[in-house]
């Protein structure tokens, strides 16, 4: 019997017993649905983190000199945490020293951020914004594009001009229906003139990148960000990977000297790259993927058990048919094949249904939660293969029972 004949036969069987087939499929369908949904969420987050987040938060070919990692990799022990707290602050003097030692071709920016509630003559209060006091190359390193206006110059930064560049959402919130350029935004009572508005960037993990205000490091903005207590970090961007490594080496030298570390002491500062931050994500992702596969597997195992039982019932119900087929010349392998294909077809049907529902679920999640989600092609392929596999495995025992039936006894059964 050819595969086509066998599949056709299986489809007839499914059509004849629609309701029974549907219940048979339920386990596989639910398993596959969750597989598709979970994987698409993980996949969506992954795309997000790797493409958006890494570039937006960290920049390309960039490292950030910090006291301790901003993105923590897995669980941090109490001892590690205490060690981090004992570390010296990164000061603006450190930043100057690092800058002096950087190889040519690198860009450099101080960054110190804090959340604060701005106000304007149009609106007294509203959502907080991430306020950053930075040096001029910050915009370049972060690859921030302007919607309108301009960014501040190095001179403005040096003299500490009270100017500010706003994220698109902050601009809209505090200057509703007016052009914010030339207007004042107040932070802790201090006025800053708006000179530019950034292009809309969207959000990552529910954190809006458009709710921010960026001003010169040497301006009064430092009072808002409390830079005296130490900087958040120093951003360094290399022209390429080799340049970045050179920059990291010279920064390490400078910082170790400034912190009076002996050769045997470990670094008491952190140079965070997008790789090191993504490392954390990779760990999270592994857990999510394992969870996203283990849970559906339970569904598939249940599905397999159901299918096996239904197929055993089908074999018992159709004993006479098997007898007839054998009398007409069906070999063991023909009968085996027929029931395996039937079971696999049934299960693949369930998988396809599950894929459709999984798509739907993933769209639903995307629309009602901040979680990003994007269906991964591989999960669709895996689902179909799993569906067929589950069907075949679940069908082996019933099919082999069917194939071993004695034709004489089978023909006599009712």
């Amino acid at each position, binding site marked *: *019997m050819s595969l086509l*004949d066998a599949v056709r036969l299986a489809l*007839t069987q499914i059509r*004849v017993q629609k309701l029974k087939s549907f219940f048979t499929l339920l386990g596989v369908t639910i398993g596959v649905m969750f597989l598709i949904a979970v994987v698409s969420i993980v996949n969506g987050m992954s795309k997000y983190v790797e493409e958006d987040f890494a570039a937006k938060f960290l920049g390309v070919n960039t490292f950030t000199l910090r006291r301790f990692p901003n993105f923590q990799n897995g669980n941090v022990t109490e001892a590690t945490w205490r060690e981090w707290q004992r570390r010296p602050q990164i000061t603006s003097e450190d930043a100057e020293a690092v800058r002096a030692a950087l190889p040519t071709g690198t860009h450099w920016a101080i960054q110190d951020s804090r959340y604060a509630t701005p106000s304007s003559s149009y609106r007294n209060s509203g959502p907080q914004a991430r306020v950053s006091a930075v040096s001029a190359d910050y915009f370049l390193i972060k690859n921030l594009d302007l919607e309108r206006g301009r960014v501040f110059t190095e001179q403005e930064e040096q003299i500490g001009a009270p100017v500010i560049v706003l994220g698109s959402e902050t601009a809209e919130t505090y200057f509703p229906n007016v052009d914010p350029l030339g207007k004042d935004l107040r932070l802790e009572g201090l006025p800053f003139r708006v000179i530019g508005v950034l292009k809309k960037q969207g959000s990552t993990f529910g954190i809006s990148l458009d709710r921010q205000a960026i001003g010169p490091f040497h301006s009064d903005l430092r009072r808002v960000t409390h830079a005296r207590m130490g900087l958040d970090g120093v951003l360094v961007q290399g022209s390429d990977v080799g340049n970045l490594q050179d920059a990291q080496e010279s920064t390490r030298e400078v910082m170790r000297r400034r912190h009076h570390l002996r050769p045997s002491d470990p670094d008491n500062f952190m140079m965070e790259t997008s790789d090191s931050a993504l490392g954390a994500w990779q760990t999270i992702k592994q857990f999510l993927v394992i969870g996203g596969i283990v849970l559906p597997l339970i569904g598939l195992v249940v599905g397999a058990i159901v299918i096996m039982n239904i197929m055993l019932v089908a074999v018992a119900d159709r004993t*006479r*048919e098997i*007898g*007839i*087929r*054998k*009398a*007409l*010349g*069906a*070999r*063991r*392998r*023909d009968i085996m094949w027929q029931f395996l294909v039937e079971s696999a077809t049934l299960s693949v049907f369930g998988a396809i249904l599950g894929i459709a529902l999984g798509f739907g679920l993933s769209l639903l999640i995307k629309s009602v939660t901040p979680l990003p989600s994007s269906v991964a092609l591989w999960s669709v392929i895996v689902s179909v293969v799993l569906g067929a596999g589950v069907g075949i495995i679940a069908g082996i025992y019933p099919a082999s029972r069917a194939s071993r039936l004695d*034709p*004489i006894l089978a*023909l006599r059964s009712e």
Partner: protein
Amino acid sequence: MSPVEQDVAMSTTAERKVVTGVPGVAPSSDWVIVTRGITRDYDMGGEVVHALRGVELAVRRNEYVAIMGPSGSGKSTLMNLIGCLDTPSAGEYWLNGVLVSRMADDELARVRNREIGFVFQTFNLLPRASALHNVELPLVYAGVSSAERKERAREALTRVQLGDRMDHRPNELSGGQRQRVAIARALVNRPAILLADEPTGNLDSTTSEEIMRVFEELASSGQTVIMVTHEPDIAQHARRVVVLRDGRISSDETRETFLASLNSARA
């Protein structure tokens, strides 16, 4: 040709040589069935039942044979053996020059598919399949392509005057029509023997006569027919009547002598 098919083909030629040398059997391809001392024992919970106690039967091509006997005489067992649904406990069975009594399951399935056309008392059609598909079934297992299958199935159905009922399901057909579908199915693979097991057992007498006429036509057109029945009225349609009693052949006569002894017994 697959390795399996090659094997079968090779063993076929090998065994053909042997059968011509079997003493007491004419070395001719005329013999469709030759059984030599076949027995069949069943183990019924420790007690051995001897259903067949050594049956010698030879059937020529084109013969029309009825196998008769009361229930328990072993005629069903003999039919299963002739139909290659079962193998004997001892003895040899040569079908169309091939020793089939030692064959394994899958080889037997192949022989059933190629050499035997079954007609059952209860028709044994697939209830959810159309008449056409039912007739196609043996060809499916013979590996015939879909187009050729349909054509040959249509031909066979036309031959039993069911050309206009091809898309009907068994439950949409009368008993006689169902049995004719079964006959078409039995013939579609051009088998060496048509093996009928109480073919009229579930039919009224008018329909029985109709089915017997179909058998008669097939027999006159050269089809070897073996029919198992317990009804003398049905058996007398055959040209040769073999009577089984207690697992042995008790008589083997032409229709004429059978009828004569039947009449004398009635008188």
